[in-house]
């Protein structure tokens, strides 16, 4: 994708509020943005290091819980005499706490699970997500368990002109999600196009070969896990302050599956892949909502996932790129053919 196209897309996204008036459309866009950020972070692991993490929703949920708890304030009775109290903090501060805490969890999980590969890795990551979900469900003193954390302050609280109506709050949320998404995209882009990214791709393609030329495999994997977890945590924090209620259901496996589908369908290991996948699987459920039951919708999801693996194993973006390349080659070829035949004709004339 060239620079001009990128700027056009950004300009388009920034001006969306000018021609969008409907609250529902905003809601769709915001949720789509949040999950696309999640998919982007998953792509860093799945696409660039080649590790299929099926526990990614854990970081999303940890981000959501951290940000809500810090902004609401909480107390933690550590011993009988000492209680750790956190007063409610501003939302931006809570947001950064979420980044740090989920990044730390990414470090921990990375250290732990990158000892194993393949099916084992997948299962460790699932287990981690399930343990975190059960902790959120059972540690009622902190997380309120199934009663959920309520009245989480909205993202834009404290900004006077944004507290007026529901619509302007959505506009504010939209820009927040857009800003976080852009930053996340730039970070991932910088990372994968740097030496670090090349090391990641090298170990995806052939781990023992990468190791033999001196790539510190665990270090790069853990680095990818930390970045990926922090970005997923940011998405979770955005979600928490937008929806304003967080319960243990944010850890449901189905959200991980949604992110995986977005990455796989768009094209893992490409920068644009998760964006395309996020666009399709963010809009699709909304388009089909009125026409089918949620179960049918999920069945369609599952079927699409299988079809994509069968027919577009690399994803949409690489397929389009390949199609574009062959088309261009053919065009150049035919142009050359015509000029060549013209030349011959001239010779004959002479």
């Amino acid at each position, binding site marked *: 994708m060239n620079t001009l196209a990128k700027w056009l897309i950004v300009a388009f996204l920034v001006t969306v509020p000018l021609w969008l008036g409907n609250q529902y459309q905003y809601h769709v866009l915001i949720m789509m943005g949040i999950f696309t950020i999640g998919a982007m972070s998953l792509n860093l692991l799945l696409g660039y290091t080649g590790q299929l993490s099926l526990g990614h929703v854990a970081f999303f949920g940890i981000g959501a819980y951290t940000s809500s708890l810090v902004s609401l304030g909480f107390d933690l009775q550590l011993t009988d005499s000492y209680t750790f109290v956190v007063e409610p903090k501003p939302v931006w501060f809570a947001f950064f706490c979420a980044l740090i805490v989920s990044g730390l969890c990414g470090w921990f999980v990375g250290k732990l699970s990158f000892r194993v590969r393949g099916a084992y890795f997948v299962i460790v990551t699932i287990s981690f997500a399930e343990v975190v979900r059960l902790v959120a469900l059972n540690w009622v003193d902190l997380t309120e368990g199934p009663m959920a954390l309520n009245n989480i302050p909205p993202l834009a609280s404290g900004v006077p002109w944004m507290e007026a109506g529901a619509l302007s709050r959505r506009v504010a949320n939209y820009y927040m999600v857009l800003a976080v998404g852009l930053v996340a995209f730039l970070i991932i882009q910088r990372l994968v196009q740097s030496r670090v990214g090349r090391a990641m791709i090298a170990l995806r393609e052939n781990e023992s070969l990468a190791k033999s030329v001196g790539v510190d495999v665990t270090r790069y994997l853990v680095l990818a896990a930390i970045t990926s977890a922090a970005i997923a945590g940011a998405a979770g924090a955005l979600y928490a302050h937008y929806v304003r209620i967080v319960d243990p259901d944010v850890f449901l496996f189905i959200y991980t*599956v949604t992110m995986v589908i977005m990455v796989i369908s768009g094209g893992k290991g490409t920068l644009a892949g998760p964006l395309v996948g996020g666009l399709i699987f963010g809009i699709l459920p909304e388009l089909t909502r009125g026409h089918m039951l949620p179960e049918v919708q999920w069945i369609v999801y599952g079927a699409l996932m299988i079809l994509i*693996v069968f027919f577009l194993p690399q994803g949409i973006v690489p397929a389009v790129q390949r199609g574009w390349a062959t088309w261009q080659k053919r065009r150049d070829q035919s142009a050359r053919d015509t000029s060549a035949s013209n030349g011959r004709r001239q010779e004959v004339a002479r």
Partner: protein
Amino acid sequence: MDQLLQHLLNALILGSTYALLGIGLTFIFGIMRVVNFAHGELYTFGAYMVYLFSVLLGVNFLLSIVIAIVLGIMLGALLEWVLLSRLRGADIDTTMLVMIGAWIIMQNAEQLIWSGVAKSIPMPFPEEPLSVGGVSVAWSRVFVFAVAILLIVGSQTLIQRTRLGKAMRATFQDRDTASLMGININMIYLATFALGSGLAAAAGALLGPIFIVMPTMGNLAVVKAFAIVILGGLGNMKGAALGGFVLALVEELGAGYISSGYRDAMGFLLIILVLMVKPTGLFARTERIG
């Protein structure tokens, strides 16, 4: 002391069905290199088939269990034929994604057909529990234990003693050589997946009546099956049988002495612990990876 004995007994009974689940999954992984995420749905399928036949159609309870297992085998064969036979030689992530797709489809189909309301299946056994020296156990659980052990021994015999089992073991050891010796690999894969699915359906058919039957019951079952298989070492059948009992024991003792809220977390903690300490599994001596 009595309490501990009771926990051990419960663990033994629960462990027998866990072992069924684990053996089916490890069997499929060992021979086919497929991480079968739809395993839990076969488990759910087994439970719903018992519900369908014994409660809705009034078929004899024991017969419904047999029917459920047979239908589970058929569904497994169908899945293999439709999805996996087209993916021979694909890498492990690809088949995993396809099986996740199958899982989503099956679970939501179940939700659509049976609705989210939990169903219970009455069992034709005396209410009075069997009491032996301070511990007591319901007759239904004795029955489950007996059938599960029968199935474990049966599948073990199938693998160790029959021609089909021999061909399966040969395929497990070396696919290409087995194929050169005239073994029809596609048939072996079909039989493997069908048998593994049948065992999962059997576990569901046995546990469904003891607990309750609902469309999401497979979610925990599939991760527990993974835990069992990891404990035993992927592809190791005896390890999976033992792993089933270990998981049940850890859950039972964890729920009894630590906290019942974290009962289901025990399995996952166990997975994480095992993979940290001994990633090849507890009971594996030699294992073929990749």
